[in-house]
Every structure is written in C-alpha cells, then in structure tokens.
C-alpha cells in the first residue's frame, strides 16, 4: 500500500437500525499517521462508526475501506493490523491480566512475550498475575489499551479512551498515542472531553445525530465558526475607558469583558495595551465546548 493512500476511507456511509438512523452520509478519509478525534454527544454515532470500521456491522448504504479492505467482508487480513479499545472494555473475569493478554497476542499471531512487554508499558506488570475481577476501572482500561496495541497496529480505534483514567495516566496515554502516530499509526479516538483534546489531535470530526457537522483542524474550525474572542480587562479604578462601548460587560468589580471578532482582535489589543486605565488583560479564545455548541446549533438551524 502506498503511503499517501488513506488508511481509513468512508464514502457516503449510512447505517440504520430499523427506523433509527444511526449514521447518515458520512464521508471522510484518514491518512497514515494522523491523529483524529471523533467528537459528539452520546448517541451521535461514534461507536457505530467504529463498529463499521471493525466489520462488526455492515453499512446500510455507502462504502468504506479500512487498510485497503472492506471490513465487513469477513477477511481477517486487515484485522491483523487493527487495534480497538471498546468503550467500557471488559474481560473474562476469571483470567489474569497476563493470561488474557497472552491469549489475545496469540490470536494476532504474536509471541506471548509481546504481551508481557505491553503489560509493562501500560504499567500493569505488577498486577499481571492477578485475576481481572479484582482490577479497578483504570486498570481494565489500561489492559484494554495494551490489547489494542498488540501486533503493531496500523490503525488504532479508541472509543472514549480516557474515561476512568487519572490525569497522570491520561497524560501518558496521549504521549503514547503521539509516539504511535509518529511511527505511522493512524489514531482515531472518540471523546466527550473536548478540552483535553487541544493540542493532542490534528483534526476533529464533529458528529451530531449521525451526521458530520464539522471536520477540520482546531484552527480551521475556529475560523469557520467565526466565534468572537473575549478580552477580559482589569481596570485600575472604577472608571471604564470610554472606548469600551456597549458590547462590554461588567463581570465584577473593575473587571470587564469585551467581545470582538478575530479580525478586530489585534486593534483592540493595541488600544487596550496603550490605555493607562487598564492594568491587566486576558485573551480568551473560544473554547472547544463553545465551538462544539456552535456547530451543533448551526446544524439545528439548517434542519429547522
């Protein structure tokens, strides 16, 4: 396979369960080594999309290719190099972490030692000989990550990978994903926690009711949304400068907030910096939650 060929490619994919439309007309392509986040609320179709990529379900319309193959054709070839971490991953409770990971390693045609290396990497080597029914949620999640990374996957699909992980492990997870992506693995992860994705992924695909409502890098999405920047001004005294007009909002004693568009931002900043009445200022970029809200809201306007 050539390097510039997409690892995962969806073309007009739709999936419905009876009358419920889980996905409609979803198209995007993920190149090799990219880190992409699927964002959407519960029931937006994130898990359905991953199940389609894994060949667990078949699309109702459209086509998709994963590692150059149709995943629902039932061929085991592509799955050899595909890793998945399901949402709320669970394992056979009677086995130990090491037993289950070795079992999964052998299923992927890897030696048992590959399992031990990964257990060490996710920090489970001490708990490896304990039964999984004694594992905490975070430990199960880490075991799930370890199994997803078996067999040097070319594509990793992670469904809500950071739920149940403490901040330190979360940090390690993102570092691990960056390392994998650097090695050419395509990482697709789904998340609610938009804020923690900042700087962690190159691209965000926002799903709502089974439809892609936005697709692009964070910067692109910000530009598309044209959300205003908020400038928080802290004043020396009670008197506000006269250029702070009607759009300003007093948010506390000597604290003002000014909304301005991305284009005006620099002009306003220069003015504020030169004003002796202002002692400090903060620039608040629109948060991802605001972005997300914007795209969801704009879609509702289109449909209504």
């Amino acid at each position, binding site marked *: 396979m050539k390097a510039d060929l997409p690892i995962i490619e969806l073309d007009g994919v739709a999936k419905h369960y009876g009358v419920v439309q889980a996905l409609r007309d979803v198209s995007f392509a993920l190149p090799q080594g990219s880190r992409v986040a699927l964002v959407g609320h519960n029931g937006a179709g994130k898990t359905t999309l991953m*199940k389609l990529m*894994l*060949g*667990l*379900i*078949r699309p109702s319309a459209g086509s998709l290719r994963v590692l150059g193959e149709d995943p629902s054709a*039932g061929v*085991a*070839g592509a*799955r*050899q190099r*595909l890793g*998945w971490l*399901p949402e*709320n*991953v*669970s*394992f*056979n409770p*009677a*086995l130990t972490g090491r*037993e289950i990971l070795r*079992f*999964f390693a*052998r*299923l*992927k*045609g890897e030696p048992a030692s590959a399992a031990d290396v990964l257990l060490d990497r996710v920090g489970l080597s001490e708990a490896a000989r304990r*039964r999984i029914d004694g594992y905490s949620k975070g430990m199960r999640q880490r075991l799930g990550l370890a*199994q997803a990374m078996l067999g040097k996957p070319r594509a990793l699909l992670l469904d809500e990978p950071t739920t149940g992980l403490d901040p330190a492990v979360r940090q390690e997870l993102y570092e691990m994903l960056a390392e994998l992506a650097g090695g050419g693995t395509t990482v697709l992860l789904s998340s609610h926690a938009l804020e923690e994705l900042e700087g962690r992924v190159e691209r965000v695909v926002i799903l709502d009711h089974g439809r892609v409502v936005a697709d692009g890098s964070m910067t692109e999405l910000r530009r598309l949304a044209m959300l205003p920047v908020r400038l928080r001004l802290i004043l020396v005294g009670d008197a506000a400068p006269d250029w702070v007009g009607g759009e300003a909002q007093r948010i506390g004693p000597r604290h003002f907030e000014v909304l301005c568009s991305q284009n005006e931002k620099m002009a306003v900043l220069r003015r504020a910096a030169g004003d002796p009445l202002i002692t400090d200022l903060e620039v608040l970029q629109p948060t991802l939650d605001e972005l997300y809200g914007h795209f969801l809201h704009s879609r509702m306007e289109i449909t209504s």
Partner: protein
Amino acid sequence: MRVVLLIAGKEIREGIRNRWVVAATLLLAALALTLAFLGAAPAGRVGAGALEVVVVSLSSLSVFLLPLIALLLSHDAVVGEAERGTLLLLLTYPLARWHVLMGKFLGYVAILGLATLLGYGAAALALLLAGAQITPGGWWAFAYMLGSSVLLGAAFVALGMLASTLVRNRGTAAGIAVGLWLLLVLLWDMGLLGLLVADQGEHLSAGAVDALFLLNPADAYRLFNLAGLADVRTLSGMTALGGESGLSAPLLLAALAAWALLPLAAAAALFSRREL
C-alpha cells in the same frame, strides 16, 4: 485450527478457574461411586458382572445429569459473552466467527469429557480395588458408555450453544435450556409411552417408533447403552426391545454425532450473519 484450539484452551482454563471442572467431576464421581456400591448388592443374585450393573445404572443416571451439566455450561456461551461485553472485542481479532463457536464447543466438551472420565473412572477403579470380577466385556461396555456419554454431552452442548446464539438475553437462553432438558429428557419418553399405549400398536409402525427414538439424543443414548450390548441388555430388561428394534449401535452413535454437529452448524450459520 490454531485459533480454535486457542479458544478451546481459554474455555478449559476458565472452566478450571470457575470450579466447573471440579464441581462436575465431584458430582459425577459421588453418584457413580454410590451407584457402584449400592447397585452391586442385588447384582450378585443374577450373576452379572459388577461393571455391567454399573453401566446400566450409570447410563440411566447420565441421561438426566449430563444433558443438564452440558446445557448449564453452554447456554451462556455466546449470549453471556455478548452481555458481559467480551464478545465484541474477541470478534475484532483476526478470526472467523465459527472459530469462536467451534473453540467454545471443543472446550466445553473437553470439560465435560474430563469430568465424565474422572468421575466414572473413579467408580470403575473403586470396583477394581474392591476386588470385583470384571470381564473384558464389562470393560468394553464401560468404555462404550464413557464414549457415548461424552457424545451425549456434546449433543446437548451444541443444543445449548444454538439457544445461546438465537437469543439476546441470558435469561431467555437459560429458559430455553431448561425447556430443552425437560422436553428431551423427561417429557419425550412419557409422550412416547402415552402414544404407544393409546395406539395399541395399530398405526405406528416399528420404523416410526425407531425414528422417534432417533429424534431425541437422550433416547439414542439410552438405547445404545441399555439395548446395544448383549450382556447389558439382559440386565436392563431391554431384551425384547433390543432384539426387535431396527436400530443398530452404529446408527445410534451416528444419530448422537448428528445431534452434536447439526445444532452447531446451525448456530455457526446464524452467528456469522448476526449484527452485533
């Protein structure tokens, strides 16, 4: 095949870990030992070999117990893993869905076979140690009983797995398993007996009765063990039946094997089409 054996191995390991193997072995051994020594008391009078008596009583017991153990093990196979959420992950690995079914089937049959061999073997060993006279014919009857018991178990494992792939709820699968056990082990024979009495031999031909026997794995097993072997036949009071029936031992074994393979094949066909 490697994948199938891997899955079977994991099932066996889980069976040992969950005390399934121990529990089934102890249960079968306790009952077999009880029957071997209690059942030996009246046998002395008719001069039959000790082991033949054990074969008769044990196969009458197996026909109730083994299907129950097999169904308890297998009704959870697919639906249980689906509910616990472990099935989806397994199916994203490079394997075909029938590999999973076949592996689990082999694993359960191995667990059941091990429990039967150890449990019933203990009874034979105890008889031997107690100084009972055991003829080569007795050993053969015992070996046939062991083998056909595993086949009987396999048939009910396959039926339980079919139930497990058909439904989406563990409770439903358990209900179907209990229903199957009641129907095939208890009600079938009563119904058959009632039918024969009511019919007075007028309409039902011997062939039809034979077919009704073959349509139930428990009956095929019972006939094979009680009427199939000459030494045992006299003991079990099935001389007349064994003589008249057109059902030969290989045919009965083939029926048992078919009962293991057909539900399994049906389960595989259903499972491969199912969306998860």
